[in-house]
């Protein structure tokens, strides 16, 4: 396979560089204040979560039964729970789990969905019809109920949780990817590539994928909050993450139990979840508007 995007040769070095569509999109994204704010918050949350073991003042499991639940103070910025554990630490550690689940499960759905959808979209014809019929059948299944059942029955298994969540999300991903691949495949520059004599592999990697990447990235970014919500929902019902680990969903369920007396146990994890979801959604929306000018409002 020939590599055309090699370093720019001498004769053309003096020529003015064009503005690629990615650069164009980045400029547009930068102008979107909300999206940038979302990105900022996201980065902050991610950094906090990654560095947690080194920067959190208290241990995650460190109990102080004598202290019990206390409202926010200078020693404990977010207060403590009924076992005297520092809420700030618990919220940050909960974030590690929630975010990890969000990102990993999305990655799983992405992998399966993109492969499936790309094949169906590119191959077309009978293969495509069969593959999408399968997706339609799966789509009609009420997955939520199945997942609950699964978790109840086999529960307490992190891997299963990932798989279950991924199993729900890959369907929509597959549909979107297939749609995108189909529409790109019908573009005339793909026909031109075929008439030039390029191999199918080259066509897919050089012509189809770069033009399909945009919507996929957008959708993946918007799937992460969906997944996090799903995990939180399951954890809230006691069906997802199990102690000693905890996620925001689990923390919220503890908080609900004692919300009348110790409202901060509910508010702070809740705020953390809502804020992160906000950031993800705004950023994802901004990405979508930046990458597809037709979809934007003006």
């Amino acid at each position, binding site marked *: 396979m020939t590599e055309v995007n090699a370093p*720019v040769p001498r004769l053309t070095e003096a*020529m003015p560089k064009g503005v690629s569509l990615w650069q*164009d999109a980045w400029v547009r994204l930068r102008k979107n204040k909300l999206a940038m704010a979302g990105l900022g918050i996201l980065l902050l949350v991610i950094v906090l979560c990654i560095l947690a073991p080194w920067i959190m003042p208290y241990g995650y499991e460190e109990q102080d039964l004598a202290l019990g639940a206390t409202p926010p103070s200078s020693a404990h910025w977010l207060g403590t729970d009924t076992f005297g554990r520092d809420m700030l630490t618990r919220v940050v550690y909960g974030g590690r789990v929630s975010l990890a689940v969000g990102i990993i499960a999305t990655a799983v759905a992405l992998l399966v969905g993109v492969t499936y959808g790309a094949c169906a979209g590119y191959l077309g014809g009978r293969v495509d019809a069969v593959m999408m019929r399968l997706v339609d059948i799966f789509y009609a299944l009420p997955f939520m109920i199945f997942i609950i059942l699964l978790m109840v029955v086999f529960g307490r298994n992190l891997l299963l949780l990932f798989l279950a969540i991924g199993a729900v999300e890959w369907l929509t991903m597959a549909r979107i990817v297939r749609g995108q691949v189909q529409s790109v495949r019908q573009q005339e520059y793909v026909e031109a590539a075929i008439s030039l*004599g390029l191999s199918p592999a080259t066509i897919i990697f050089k*012509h189809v994928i*770069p033009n399909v990447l945009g919507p996929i990235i957008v959708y993946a970014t918007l799937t992460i909050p969906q997944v996090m919500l799903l995990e939180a929902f399951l954890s809230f019902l006691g069906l997802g993450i199990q102690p000693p680990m905890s996620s925001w969903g689990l923390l919220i369920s503890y908080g609900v139990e004692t919300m009348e007396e110790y409202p901060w146990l509910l508010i702070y994890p809740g705020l953390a979840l809502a804020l992160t979801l906000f950031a993800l959604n705004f950023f994802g929306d901004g990405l979508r508007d930046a990458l597809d000018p037709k979809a934007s409002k003006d």
Partner: protein
Amino acid sequence: MALLTVDNLTVYFHTRNGVVPAVDGVSFEVNNGETLAIIGESGSGKSVACYSLLGLIPRPPGRIEAGTALFEGKDLLQLSEARLRRVRGKGISIIFQDPMTSLNPFLKIGDQLIEPLRLHFDMERREAWSKATAILEEVGIPNAARRMNAWPFEFSGGMRQRVMIAMALITEPEIIIADEPTTALDVTVQAQILKLIKELQVRRNIGVVFISHDLSVVADIADNIAVMQNGVFVEQGSRDQIFKSATHPYTQKLLAAVPDSEKQPSVPGARTPMVEIEKLKVWFGDSRRGEEVRAVDDVSLTIKQGEILGLVGESGSGKSTLGRAILRLVNPVAGTIAFEGRAIEGLNARELKPLRRHMQMIFQDPYASLNPRMTVYDTLAEPLLLHKIVNRKGLDVEVFALMDSVGLARDAVLRYPHEFSGGQRQRIAIGRAIATKPRFIVADEPVSALDVTIQAQILNLLLELVDRFDLTMLFVSHDLAVVRYLSDRIVVMKEGQLVESGSAHDIFTNPQQPYTRALLKAIPGKSLLSGNLSFE
């Protein structure tokens, strides 16, 4: 007394990137019984000028800076929105360009037709319905009463445009603005619609403003013509004045851009056939359920080395499919294709690959035929490297040579497609097609999406390249005048079948088949074409 008098109309668009003077001091008159044609290329401001009279331009960015438009004793530009609404669809109606998208797909034809009557005259539904039915008949829709209950998608493009015309006429307006009403229609249908508009105008003594980018289209119907460029009228006059004694260079350029000459026949000699097609069938869809589409149905033809064969047909004729079939972009279900004596209809991808460098295609849509993520350099280098025309060291030189050949400035080499105009993109596409030094090129409507003046440039470029590189070309188009300008020989297709073939000269002076004759008769502005043409 004129129906509408527009004086110094000025409309600016205040966008984030600056002020765009869309219309800059335009004045004209519309009289009853007369057609004023406003001619301009895309971006000239012709549509904005007319829409702004009725307040139909988006008016945050747009603003009417100056001017008056006197209609029925009032200045339209000063009217309040409520009063303006009483003129829209009643005193002045509009027929839009694209009949496929201008009707509401969720409402029945009848419901849409009666709307203006009920709105402006407060008519009872039953009365409005019968009036609408009558007008539907008048515009030539058979079975009008039944069709009133039909949905828009049940109609073809030409029929939908008739419905649009009916909807515009139903309130008996004084003026009709027709915004490129035939641009999206086939040639024969276009001729019918033009005739219809003219008839209705005469019968009802209406004033018509006909917007178009194509001088030949209005040659037969315009009484007065205004030529617009960059927001101003560069020239204005009667039809004869413009066509016979235009003074402004832009007008002259537009007139010159109409391909009106016949190609001089090249020196005849024994020429070997390059492409031979025998009984070719390209069918799509499910034959078992009788749902097949016979895009190409039993076509046989030969393309001789060195000639330009013009393939003419309307939409649905199968002309594009035939071109694609030769290049094996679609596969035939029956018949043979021979390229330089070798049968290629059954070859697999691997066997085809070495042949591909000798046969290339130029596509219609310059916006879709280039990969938006690749620079000009990448696009031109790809075929060069793939078929090993040059090695890495020689790439730059060859790429620049290609750009010179197609008339692209060298410093554009690292830019992306979206940074170019339509004409420039087509040049890039042509560059890509000739990069492998092919012997045969299929040009599928390469100029249909371009402005008239750009069209002429690209056509001349193609002629030059064919001559210089000794190419053989299959030129597919729906535009007879263009085909006449370029081709040595012509074949005519209709609904998948070959109807007639012959030398360009013979086809135009002595057409044999009724369909060919109908096509020729439908050529707009044929009075502009030089040469001895017979159309009866």
